[in-house]
């Protein structure tokens, strides 16, 4: 299979890498760039462990072919920090113990960050009362809204109640 050179920005740094045309964005990050914050739990878009923010939206990186994302902007959980300061979600996950084994955690956090941006943009969810107008900002997020919007991210340790508490705390700020 032909190899192709692509450049993606990862957590603010442009990275050029040669990929097989079959290489997923996830494998390009993990196996070719050594960026292992996004995790591989299923490789089929069924678990959410590989979630990154791609071009501003939460994305399952195992379902993207790397060659199609040349020029893309990838933010992992590491890149959510401001300098050395943690993102509020990082601290909230630690404070609420929203993790156990930690393997789904970077994906949960990227997904939560992307989800909160969607809420601020007015996106409705399946459980929203008004599908046209969505929610009135992140402060309107109920626990049921968080659960619905985060359901693409599986956690086998069952840390869900603590993850929801962590996200709710950040959303309420």
């Amino acid at each position: 299979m032909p190899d192709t050179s692509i450049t993606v920005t990862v957590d603010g740094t442009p990275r050029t890498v040669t990929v097989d045309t079959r290489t997923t964005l996830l494998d390009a990050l993990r196996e070719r760039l050594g960026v292992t914050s996004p995790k591989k739990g299923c490789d089929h878009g069924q678990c959410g462990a590989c979630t990154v923010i791609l071009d501003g939206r939460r994305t399952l990186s195992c379902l993207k072919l790397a060659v199609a994302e040349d020029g893309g902007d990838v933010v992992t959980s590491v890149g959510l920090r401001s300098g050395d300061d943690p993102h509020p979600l990082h601290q909230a996950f630690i404070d609420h113990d929203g993790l156990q084994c930690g393997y789904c955690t970077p994906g949960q956090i990227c997904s939560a960050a992307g989800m909160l941006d969607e809420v601020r943009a007015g996106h409705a969810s399946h459980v929203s009362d008004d599908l046209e107008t969505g929610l009135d900002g992140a402060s309107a997020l109920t626990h049921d809204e968080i659960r619905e919007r985060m359901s693409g991210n599986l956690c086998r340790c069952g840390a869900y109640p603590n993850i929801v508490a962590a996200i709710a705390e950040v959303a309420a700020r």
Partner: protein
Amino acid sequence: MTVTQTPREAGHAVGSDVARIDGEAKVLGLAKYAFEQVVDRPTYLHVVQSTVARGRVTGFDTSDAEALDGVLLVLSHLNAPMIADTSDQEYAVLQSPGVAFRGQIVGAVVAETPEIARHAAELVRVTYDVHDHDTELREDHPDLYEPGQVNPAYPADTEDGAVDTALGRAAVVVDQRYTTPMEHNNPMEPHACIAVWEEGPRLTVYDSTQFAHGVKNKLVALFDLQPSAVRVISPYVGGGFGSKGMAHAHNVLVVLAAMSLPGRPVKLALTRQQMFALVGYRTPTLQRVRLGAGDDGRITAVVHEAVEQTSRIKEFAEQTTVGTRSMYAAGARRTTHRLVALDVAVPSWMRAPGEAPGMFALESAMDELAEATGLDPIELRVRNEPEQDPETGLPWSGRHLVECMRQGAARFGWDLRGLPGSRREGDWLIGLGMAASTYPGYVMPGSVASVAYNQHGHYQVRIGAADIGTGSWTALTQLAADALDVPMSRVHVEIGDTSLPMATVAGGSAGLASHGSAVVEAARKFREEHGVDPPHGAVTEATLADHPEREKHAVHSYGAQFVEARVNVDTGEVRVPRMTGVFSCGRIVNPRTARSQFIGGMVWGLSMALHEHSVIDHTLGHVVTHDLADYHIPSHADVGDIDVSWLDEEDLVANPMGLRGIGEIGIVGSAAAVANAVHNATGMRVRDLPITPDRLVR
């Protein structure tokens, strides 16, 4: 980042609410799991699995695979290195052309990239001499047998008193069959390892395991290596739930490949689909429970019989009915296990093996007995509370089930429970249910810990234990700090490496009890030998101290589980908006991570009740629900509010720290509590898990 709110004072770490010491690394994703270890010039292995359930490999055509650029090695039984010890057939990988279950490893491709390896694996053409197979567990299977013992070392059958006479005379008899399906552990991190074979020979394996020393010892024996030549490193583990409690076939395969490619690290991560054949699972169970009781609900006879499967190549006998032996007072008691060896993958440990499926049956039957006698389910259990262990006659180290039930009832609002089918809001029937839970307070001998004093007043505590998400790394630090009587900030615990002192498996809810006992004893001896002002470089190593009181007692944890279930009258959908669990597990070392363990266990029970089901296609002999789209585990939207609390106690009979393990008791009983709540909502008794909507649509 404020990672720990460490108690500044010495002697107060145990019992303090402490953040995980690995929390920052995990939220950022900088914690390096096995497959993420940085190695030089890695190669990638992809497994070739059998596509028949029983037979022999007659042809293994590698020509197309080997023609691909980047393919380094194609392995099969024709060219694999010999294994020294093939007595355990799970580990006799590629040693013969035999196929004993569908999905068994029949080959492997190693290539320069994962894409090439996967492509090449698909190009390998395997032909088989196919034999008839049998993958279906049946209660009347002609090959049922009584195993020599059940996991880990219990007798298969027990009989106490005149069971049949007592049943015949009982005023009330519950006699029901319950089934639980095959279930798969499915930790979020697929089983992964990297093997490096170097001159000497010297073998280094990065593995995702609950038991680094166990994997090492297995590889030493299988490949007849010097123990000093093998090192297993397992710094972070993305969940295990028993499936990483021992080596599995893939560990052997990756070493076979590494031996063939000396100097090149071989990386193997099983795919999610491959995990359904290669890393163990919970056997399906067919159970029959008979309870005989007087009109007053006092149980006079209990019979619990289980039928389960094992594989043809290796026996694993799950202890399904063992929980029943100690749970309730009864004049007469019989428990049995019968197995049949089928053409299926090797079953193994899955969170609370035995207790989880067995207590689903017993605690469902108790709910049926409560209904039959007109007693409240809690009152029924109180009336059958045994004064000492019915199985052994030993006194309890601390049995507080009644307190758990009383506290749980108050926290949950048990008094709101009405008659079955009596409460409806809109399209939803609402019911409340409860069940009791139990799990043994195991301590495993053999772990060793060392304590060393370094410059600047810091202590290095070393033990080859594993933190699979339990928080044990943090809890061990707390225990060590108090045992040394220094602040946590001066204690550094190293785990996850066989270059550290031997540690037993992080399983059986025995990790902290066993590893902590070694750490506490090492700290005590360190102070004894070196005093409170030790010289730089002072080191002490110790194993668990003798704890003779323990053998004179029955040591078990208890809990009470409460569930509200809502059942849609049209679709049969079951929702669980809230659960309450109250547990008695001795001293709680870290309330924050302990709460997570209990919550996680209860989510597992909810999952067992409503979701998990590995479906075998008996025509082809394989698990068809072999990914996370078809094998259902709860998502965020499936889990409601979970209220967890515990009794304030310590159990100094169990071990010097006064704790009993907490990793598994949360799952025990919670599935029955869900089923009992569904019954209270609908009046329908579902005795076959999972409780899918089709079982509830009239």
